[in-house]
């Protein structure tokens, strides 16, 4: 955490309200996000208890599994979830625009431009907290290897038709959420705490209710008190007034309310099964329906507060203007969405259980590149983020005090103007270090020449005062280690090296002028891709060699003890046990 963030947290403690960490919104928010508030059964893997899901804040769809241990009821839940999520996702797959992508021509090996489709917009899934993202991944993993009766008539417990597809999409959303700066699947607590610093620790910020209490406390109440209430206050029955955002439920809820309700449901179901005639069955069906309704009410009572909180959080975020580069990152999300849509349409198999070496390396490289991109873009979009980079010596801002025209010493001299900038920042500049500034959205680079001692209080110094500081590293003294020196300030001389056109005279506007306020960064604005990795078939032996069919098949045979022609086309489903006690 940078010192600026720390300071913001302390100010939040002092003022009783969250303090801004950003002046713009650094994530794209869809016009019509799909909010998903899931609950899970404690202690079980992939046994959902219920969820609220939908795009309309006033009309969420409530999905409930009255007995989470019953496989059929879980399948019903997943099928209903698929009925909500898949039409939403498909709606974005239809509207496309033409785009270009460079691909390697398989015959000539050259990079050529090909015309491809790019979805005009992409779906966006919002979950309350980080645990929700993990749950989306988990749900995806639990569904994508399921077989439907159509795929394999002999499968012991066939899944409803669209469930495996939903699993693939949720896996894709979960995988994409690991890419820094992506917005296909967002955890609201993460996004909110990116934009506001509260007066509590980042651990406590993961509680959505407490986080919102700090950002928008009720009238006249300090954030700390409101947050404490959100965290701990219980009603007369010992239930939390602000239930956890899930997917885990509060143990007190499980033990006191949910367990008796599920027991009642089980009893009603057994009684219905034992009913001897129609009249009796009718009565008992009524009891079963009532028991189920009771569980539905319970689940709704735990998810609805979170649902409303999520929309409140989205409102707060919408209050911030979107950062200039957020759209650029959203375009990458659209590419990712389009890519998976094409994969599904082309009949590709579901994502494998484990990535092969090349895919894994590619994913890691992407995440690293996107992290660097995100950090650079956030700083460029937001002076408050840039302030953090300036404090860290990774950027500096100031006023241009002098511009001297100079030329390179080649046959065709090109402009290499020397620009002197007066700054209070302490950049860590090495000899001939490259620095960048944003010029019309494109980075212009410059080279560090030297530090110049600034003349006292002289606003329009001629730029060549006593050059006592010399060149290079000594100027990179830690910011703030010497307060006297910091007060005196420094001027930095830079040589602009590009983006000035081809002529002898630089193009108008491409060289800073005296009196301009400008900001240079030590980090690059745009990220280059790394070296290309070999195709999976060319994986070197050092990395396990090319992926073979046999390893996958052998694993599958070992696990389930059955092979078949159908098994070759699809990855093996997970082994299922006969009785369904999880």
């Amino acid at each position, binding site marked *: *955490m*940078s*010192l*600026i963030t*720390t*300071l913001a947290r*302390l100010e939040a*403690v*002092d003022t009783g309200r969250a303090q801004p960490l950003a*002046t*713009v919104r650094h994530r794209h928010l869809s016009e019509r996000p799909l909010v998903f508030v899931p609950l899970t*059964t*404690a*202690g*079980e*893997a*992939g046994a959902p208890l219920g969820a609220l899901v939908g795009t309309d804040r006033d009309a969420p769809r409530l999905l409930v599994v009255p007995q989470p241990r019953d496989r059929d009821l879980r399948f019903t839940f997943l099928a209903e979830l698929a009925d909500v999520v898949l039409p939403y996702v498909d709606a974005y797959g239809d509207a496309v625009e033409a785009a270009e992508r460079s691909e390697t021509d398989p015959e000539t090996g050259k990079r050529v431009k090909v015309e491809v489709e790019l979805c005009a917009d992409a779906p966006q899934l919002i979950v309350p907290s980080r645990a929700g993202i993990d749950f989306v991944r988990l749900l995806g993993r*639990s569904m994508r290897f399921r077989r439907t009766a159509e795929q394999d008539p002999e499968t012991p417990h066939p899944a409803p038709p669209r469930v495996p597809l939903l699993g693939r999409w949720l896996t894709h959303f979960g995988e994409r959420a690991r890419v820094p700066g992506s917005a296909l699947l967002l955890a609201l607590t993460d996004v909110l705490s990116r934009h506001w610093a509260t*007066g*509590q*620790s*980042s*651990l*406590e910020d993961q509680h959505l209710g407490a986080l919102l209490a700090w950002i928008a406390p009720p009238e006249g109440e300090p954030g*700390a008190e409101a947050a404490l209430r959100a965290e*701990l206050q219980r009603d007369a029955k010992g239930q939390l007034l602000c239930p956890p955002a899930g997917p885990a*439920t*509060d*143990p*007190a809820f*499980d*033990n006191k309310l949910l*367990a008796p309700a599920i027991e009642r449901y089980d009893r009603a179901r057994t009684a219905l099964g034992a009913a001897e005639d129609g009249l009796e069955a009718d009565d008992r069906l009524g009891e079963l329906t009532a028991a189920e309704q009771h569980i539905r009410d319970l689940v709704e009572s735990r998810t609805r507060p979170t649902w409303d909180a999520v929309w409140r959080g989205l409102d707060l975020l919408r209050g911030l*203007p*979107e950062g*200039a580069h957020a759209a650029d990152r959203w375009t990458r999300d659209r590419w990712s969405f389009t890519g998976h849509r094409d994969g599904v349409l082309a009949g590709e198999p579901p994502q494998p259980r484990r990535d092969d070496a090349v895919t894994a390396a590619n994913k890691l490289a992407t995440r690293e590149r996107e992290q660097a991109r995100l950090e650079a873009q956030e700083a*460029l*979009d937001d*002076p*408050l983020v*840039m*302030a953090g980079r300036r*404090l860290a010596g990774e950027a500096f*801002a100031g006023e241009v005090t002098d511009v001297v025209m100079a030329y390179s010493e080649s046959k065709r001299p090109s402009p290499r103007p020397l620009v002197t900038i007066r700054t209070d920042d302490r950049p860590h500049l090495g000899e001939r270090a490259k620095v960048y500034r*944003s010029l019309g*959205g494109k980075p212009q680079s410059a080279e560090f020449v030297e530090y110049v001692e600034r003349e006292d209080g002289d606003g329009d110094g001629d730029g060549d005062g006593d050059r006592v500081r010399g060149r290079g590293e000594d100027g990179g003294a*830690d*910011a*703030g*280690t010497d*307060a006297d020196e*910091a007060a005196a300030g420094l001027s930095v001389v830079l040589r602009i090296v590009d983006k000035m056109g081809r002529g002898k005279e630089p193009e108008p506007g491409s060289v800073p002028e005296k009196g301009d306020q*400008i*900001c240079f960064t030590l980090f690059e604005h745009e990220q280059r891709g790394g070296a290309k990795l070999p195709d999976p078939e060319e994986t070197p032996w050092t990395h396990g060699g090319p992926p073979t069919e046999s390893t996958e098949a052998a694993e599958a045979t070992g696990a389930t003890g059955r092979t078949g022609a159908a098994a070759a086309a699809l990855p093996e489903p*997970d*082994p*299922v*046990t006969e009785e369904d*006690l*999880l």
Partner: protein
Amino acid sequence: MNKATLASALGSPSAFGQSQFAFMRGNAFEARVKADGGAELLRLVHERLDPGAVPPQGAAVPDLTAVGPEGRAARTALALREATEAGAWTLLDHPLLALDVAGSPAFLEPDAVVVHPDGSWTVVEIKSFPMLDGSADAAKVGAAARQAAVYVLALEQVANRLGADRLGADRVVAEPQGRAQISNVRHRILLVCPKDFSNLPAASAVDVRKQRSVTRRQLDRLTRIEDIADSLPDGTCFAPDLPAADLTAAVESVPATYAPECLATCELAFHCRARSRADGAVTSLGRSLRAELGGLTTVDDVLAAARGTTGDPTDPAVAALRRAAELRAEALGSRSPGHDRSLDHKGTPCP
């Protein structure tokens, strides 16, 4: 002393609890793993840890019931010795081990301990979080490894005592630092979890040497409980039925350093947090904050230093704070009311 009751009496009840669903699932899974005389469990131990040994067939499962924790611990030690001497696969279901913590014995109950035919011992930890495609949640595995490391330490103490009985006291004293190294406790424990989304067991060997040495160092460094008791004023009492004010004073007399991590582990964390916040300690916002703030430990001190009202400007922490405050104000100041940032900064997003 029951810290949860104490926390409730102090007015900051702990929020711990286990859902009966998780509890039932954990028990059901454990019973399944240990079913049939532990056949499946021993097969996993053999496969993962000791494939060279003879395959287990119908292992001995000694009865470990006895009266009181001391009795059960003694019974466990006896069973361990017998099993080691017998040289056959033995499963100890829920043994009870005594571990010396800060001078007072603590009783621990691992899920199971397996004695191998070569006389070595393995701790088995059965957890109900899933192992998905061969990997489980790293945080949960870490917690299980730390837990198992404590059992390994306790088993080593048992081994030491048994060794002392067997070999006479001379040999134990002859060891450096008076700590006999008896190596029949294996440092790789067996973690058993449900496989994927099923209730079939999957097992993995986890090396707990690191956690074991960390725990041992921490146990060695713990202030002995008598020393803490001596430092308390006479008449300090933690009985939950005392008036809240007296109780608070009593708890205050024991020094505690709250950090947000405490919330995950300690029943008294909400109490300590309230005190820490009331004192304005910066640590209540996270341990990492302390590192940057030098000698400034309270919120008021830090803010006063940042605003320039107090603090020594030659102190690097104070100077950095002032610079941070200046930069922050500058960045936020440019956002004056009625000033449309998104337009103003098009092209040159930074000032």
